[in-house]
């Protein structure tokens, strides 16, 4: 039964993917891409990867379509017909694909318990993480404690990507009077009222996700995206200028640095206390308390950086005018 559902969902995914590629109207592609993301979240759920599904849901429903739409507003709506022949790219894709498929022949069967990946560190995570880290949600233990280095890298990547996009956009920014203030939707009474009720709820939900990563799916990445989505809703309906009063660009940049510094700071403190970098055991007398605090602070850093980066991306996209 579950396998049948997996296959059906994957089939949908293929259909949507083909439709996205075939579509010349980029706006329609964005819409179809939204469906693609909904489907991937459902597939992740059915594969039991609830944390990944949560991330996909938050990013897909809240941020990605909006950022793609913002980008689209800077370019043109229709895809230019390709002028060169499709033969060479097709061959490259076919050869690469064939190589990859050939590679899968050596891989162990799907869900094979004897596969090497299940023999390496996974048993330790599953059997010992509760004693060693004390979190019911193993994914959080792995993400924030065992593989804290990787996650730190990811946060730095998000930060760097944010900085890069801001730099790129600043070079096409126009003079102050030319800035297009995309209309805010304040004059729609329905939208205004519903948003006024929903924004506090969305923000609180984001904090719930941030602080319950220990128990269930959730954590800094998802929470940051949802928090940013709440503010983006605010910016779209109540106004960009209003949100700038609270979140000036400088303040946002400062916030996204704070998150990274908080993460690295935890690592430095553990070094000073005589442990290894990001070994939270030394943070408190009790080993598990130390782990708990370490993960809490690190996730908080992730959440702050993600929120600030996403929000400043959205705001700077809204400032740039389409080049005529």
């Amino acid at each position, binding site marked *: 039964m579950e396998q049948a*559902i997996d296959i059906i969902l994957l089939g949908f995914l293929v259909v949507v993917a083909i439709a996205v590629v075939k579509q010349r109207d980029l706006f329609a592609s964005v819409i*179809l891409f939204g469906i693609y993301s*909904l489907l991937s979240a459902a597939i992740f759920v059915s594969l039991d990867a609830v944390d990944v599904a949560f991330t996909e849901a938050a990013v897909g429903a809240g941020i990605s379509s909006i950022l793609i739409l913002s980008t689209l507003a800077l370019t043109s709506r229709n895809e230019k017909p390709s002028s060169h022949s499709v033969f060479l790219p097709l061959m490259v894709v076919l050869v690469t694909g064939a190589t990859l498929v050939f590679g899968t022949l050596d891989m162990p069967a799907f869900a094979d318990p004897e596969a090497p990946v299940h023999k390496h560190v996974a048993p330790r995570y599953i059997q010992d993480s509760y004693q060693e880290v004390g979190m019911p949600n193993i994914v959080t233990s792995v993400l924030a404690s065992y593989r804290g280095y990787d996650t730190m890298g990811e946060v730095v990547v998000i930060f760097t990507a944010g900085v890069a996009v801001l730099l790129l956009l600043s070079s096409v920014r126009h003079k102050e009077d030319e800035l297009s203030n995309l*209309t805010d939707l304040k004059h729609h009474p329905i939208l205004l009222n519903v948003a006024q009720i929903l924004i506090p709820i969305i923000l609180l939900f984001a904090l719930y996700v941030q602080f319950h990563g220990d128990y269930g799916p959730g954590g800094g990445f998802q929470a940051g995206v949802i928090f940013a989505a709440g503010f983006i809703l605010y910016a779209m309906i109540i106004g960009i200028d209003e949100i700038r009063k609270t979140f000036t660009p400088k303040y946002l940049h400062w916030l996204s640095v704070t998150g990274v510094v908080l993460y690295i700071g935890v690592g430095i403190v553990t070094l000073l206390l005589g442990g290894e970098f990001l070994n939270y055991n030394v943070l408190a007398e009790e080993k598990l308390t130390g782990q708990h605090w370490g993960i809490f602070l690190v996730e908080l850093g992730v959440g702050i950086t993600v929120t600030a980066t996403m929000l400043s991306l959205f705001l700077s996209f809204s400032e740039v005018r389409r080049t005529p």
Partner: protein
Amino acid sequence: MILAITAIALLVAMAMTLLRAILGPSIFDRILAANAFGTKIVLFLGVYGFLTERPDFLDIALLYALINFITTLAILRFFESGVLFVKSDEESN
């Protein structure tokens, strides 16, 4: 058993919605379909959670119910600003 039937009915409805999203013809039909697809996914996640006896997936459904409409608003906003609708094509009549 009944849960499985519900899940399959939702999948069939998703397939129909998908067809509408691909066929169009206008951009509004596609957005409508994408939106309805979101509702279907919310319900599907709920049913799937019960089918596999792990209802803690509900948080994801809750998240979709809360923020799936943000994209629609974004579309309206870009429409109001006139950036995305300047080039009207097949659906302009």
